[in-house]
């Protein structure tokens, strides 16, 4: 047998070109088969390992698979959000043990940036209930703190102390970046083998800031990170603001301010939560524009304002907008169609003495809920459209600030309301990715005290009237996902089996083609005393060698291919392909390939044996 094997090997070596081609075709088909199977297996494994202990994932109503993919696997995006109120409401339910808010949608060099809270690291579990562990450093409470996953650290070559500038939107760095406010890596997580490894985790408030910055295009350098979590801080303390002698004024430190005087170029667009703003003395404001003031009182001295179509301006009482001249406010809430007149729009457009030309300012400030919670420090707000002495020409300012919320703007600086440059804002449209408005979350994970409550709670959440939500049970939705993928998998598997069969048929064909020219060889072997059975074995062994060689070459090729493809697949799907390793599954498939190879080779083997028997010592060539 051993000598038959040597003989088979030498015989193959002798016709190495055709053997090599056969080998290659088998290798390719085997690589395909094992690769498809591996990726399939790994996807499932990867997915089911990635989340454990989370009873429900709550997100905006839509596809449950989408919510699961985005919230746990960071695949795809959410195009809606859950309001902060809903998050608070459901998080505070007695059944709920913990909840983890997630703000998704941004990335850094292909690595997802996740806004979340400490709860993520306290309660999130993966694998068999493993917790996330910080390998080095800590998260820290600073707004610029960033805790990064193991692979993110490795792939991006980041270490503690490095600064990271977040691109806006997912994917590559083609988007506008904000170099003004880099995050600083403060900690690195232990590897988990889950999508957590890819992530860059920041405080959810910092995420809001990031988005606001983008909306604003300005500078909000130091905001109070706690503003979000202390909603009460808002405007309660705004009694008696003193905005005295503001020329290009400063709204920083609004506590205890009184007597807003001499404001030039001020604009309060759509103040949602301004009910408690009392005692503001906006005297001598020039060029003020209060779009949609809700509950502002005691605005005195404003003159000449035209608040056309204030949506929620019922409470504008006693405003004194002095020295406003010639402002035409047409539809303050949204599209400002400014035709022919001086005007201001939703944001802070303090018009000094300039004229908007005859243009169409399509400023679409959808859903501006400006929540000027003025913090302790003076900050400059990006919405400073204080027009000093320049004119908007006959242009079309297509500002489209989709659904943003300035709820955590603490400490606005409305200084320098003159000589403002509008240019930056033209055509800023970042509507092709979505991040939740400040105060809301993309989705949140909850854990229950008692898992058995999950179904009931899910039912309740689905019927929540305040907001269209859905609650996803990770396990159930994973099964759903497999069902969707099952068909594709089967198809792929079928195709790869087919390709293997083609590769093996090629081998059988080459063995058959050789049969004729090997009759002499068989006669010699027969003369020596080799039995027909051994001739049969010889051909089968050759097929076996080709198959084994194909398997080895195919596996090596696959290992190499996976290694080369790994970054691309990771970038593209967020799926981390493990490097190739041989497990029982692989051996099973290899065994099947070998068996199939042997079965297919039966034909050339039997035919060779028969012709050898027939030829005897004198082959007829």
């Amino acid at each position, binding site marked *: 047998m051993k*000598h*038959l094997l*040597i*003989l088979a090997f*030498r*015989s193959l*070596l*002798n016709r190495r070109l055709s053997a090599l081609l056969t080998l290659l075709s088998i290798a390719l088909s085997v690589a395909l088969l094992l690769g498809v199977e591996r990726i399939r297996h790994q996807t499932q494994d990867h997915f089911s390992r990635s989340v454990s202990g989370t009873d429900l994932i709550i997100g905006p109503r839509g596809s449950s698979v989408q919510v699961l993919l985005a919230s746990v696997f960071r695949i795809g995006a959410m195009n809606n959000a859950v309001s902060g109120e809903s998050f608070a409401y459901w998080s505070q339910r007695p059944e709920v043990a913990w909840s983890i808010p997630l703000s998704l949608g941004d990335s850094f060099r292909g690595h997802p940036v996740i806004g979340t809270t400490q709860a993520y690291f306290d309660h999130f579990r993966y694998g068999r209930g493993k917790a996330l562990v910080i390998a080095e450093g800590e998260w820290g409470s600073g707004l610029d703190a960033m805790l990064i996953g193991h692979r993110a650290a490795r792939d991006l070559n980041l270490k503690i102390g490095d600064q990271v500038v977040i691109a806006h939107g997912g994917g590559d760095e083609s988007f506008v970046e904000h170099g003004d406010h880099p995050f600083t890596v403060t900690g690195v997580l232990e590897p988990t083998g889950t999508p957590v490894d890819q992530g860059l985790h920041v405080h959810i408030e910092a995420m809001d800031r990031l988005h606001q910055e983008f909306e604003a295009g300005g500078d909000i350098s130091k905001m109070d990170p706690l503003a979000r979590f202390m909603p009460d801080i808002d405007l309660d303390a705004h009694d008696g603001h003193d905005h005295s002698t503001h020329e290009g004024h400063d709204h920083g430190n609004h506590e205890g301010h009184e007597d807003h005087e001499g404001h030039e170029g001020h604009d309060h667009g759509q103040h949602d939560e301004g009910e408690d703003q009392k005692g503001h003395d906006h005297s001598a404001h020039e060029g003020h524009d209060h779009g949609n003031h809700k509950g502002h009182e005691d605005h005195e001295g404003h003159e000449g304002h035209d608040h056309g179509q204030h949506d929620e301006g019922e409470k504008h009482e006693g405003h004194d907008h002095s020295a406003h001249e010639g402002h035409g406010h047409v539809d303050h809430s949204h599209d400002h169609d400014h035709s022919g007149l001086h005007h201001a729009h939703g944001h802070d457009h303090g018009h000094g003495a300039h004229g908007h030309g005859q243009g169409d300012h399509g400023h679409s400030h959808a859903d501006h809920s400006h929540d000027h919670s003025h913090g302790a420090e003076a900050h400059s707000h990006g919405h400073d459209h204080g027009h000093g002495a320049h004119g908007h020409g006959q242009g079309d300012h297509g500002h489209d600030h989709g659904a943003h919320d300035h709820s955590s703007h603490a400490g606005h600086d409305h200084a320098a309301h003159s000589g403002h440059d509008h240019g930056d804002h033209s055509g800023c449209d970042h509507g092709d990715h979505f991040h939740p408005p400040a105060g809301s979350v993309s989705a949140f994970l909850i854990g229950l005290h008692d898992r058995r409550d999950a179904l009931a709670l899910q039912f309740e959440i689905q019927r929540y009237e305040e907001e269209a939500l859905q609650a996803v049970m990770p396990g159930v939705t994973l099964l759903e996902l497999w069902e969707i993928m099952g068909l594709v998998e089967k198809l792929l598997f079928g195709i790869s089996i087919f390709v293997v069969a083609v590769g093996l048929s090629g081998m059988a064909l080459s063995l058959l083609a050789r049969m004729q020219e090997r009759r*002499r*060889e068989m*006669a*010699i*072997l*027969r*003369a*020596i*005393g*080799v*039995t*027909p*059975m*051994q001739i049969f074995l010889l051909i089968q062994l050759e097929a076996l060698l080709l198959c084994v060689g194909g398997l080895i070459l195919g596996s090596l090729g696959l290992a190499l291919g996976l290694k080369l493809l790994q970054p691309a697949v990771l970038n593209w799907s967020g799926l981390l392909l493990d490097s190739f390793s041989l497990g029982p599954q692989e051996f099973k498939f290899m065994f099947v390939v070998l068996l199939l190879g042997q079965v297919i080779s039966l034909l050339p083997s039997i035919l060779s044996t028969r012709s050898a028997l027939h030829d*005897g*010592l*004198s082959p007829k060539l």
Partner: protein
Amino acid sequence: MICLTMKDLSYTWPGQDRPILDGLSLQLSQGEHLYVHGPSGSGKSSLLGLLAGILPAAPDQLNVLGLDLGKQSPLKRDRFRAAHLGVIFQQFNLLSYLSVLENVELPARMIPERRNKLDGKASAIRDEAKRLLSRLNLEELADRSVQQLSVGQQQRVAAARAMMGSPEVLLADEPSSALDEKNRDLLMQGLLELCKEHESSLVLVSHDPALAQHFEQQLELRP
């Protein structure tokens, strides 16, 4: 000791109505040589096929080394051939993908019975192969590829291989028909020497009457 006995040996190819061999009788002692001749198509090769156990003889007609080949199963005949017979063809005796030495070693490597005659060791096999090659003045060619040999050299390598493991009977089917006189003589000389040395009997088929002188017995076949 009797090497070969034919008793009214006949053979008819399947599908043919006339026997190609009819009523051959002959007895050959061990160490004696038999010269078989006859016109083309007279059944010389068929006779060697019977002797080698490739073709099935009828019972009680053919006895080689005390074994009635007609009563053996095909597998038994294969084993018998492997153990006791050496075969040389007219041409193309060698496996092209093995070296000269490997070709000579092949029977001892493949066939346990042959190997056992050489106390089974790989070194013994190699030594014997080299010895056989040198007896045929081929020692320099041992490591060559067989494709680099002349036809005469190839036939002598085939003779060396047939003698590997000292088979009792050597069957040669026109081994020198493709050779010139000089090469023919070289081959015959080597064959006869080796047979003598191993006390083997040689059954040789040839058209060449010049060879007949070396043989104790002759058998002429008629169509």
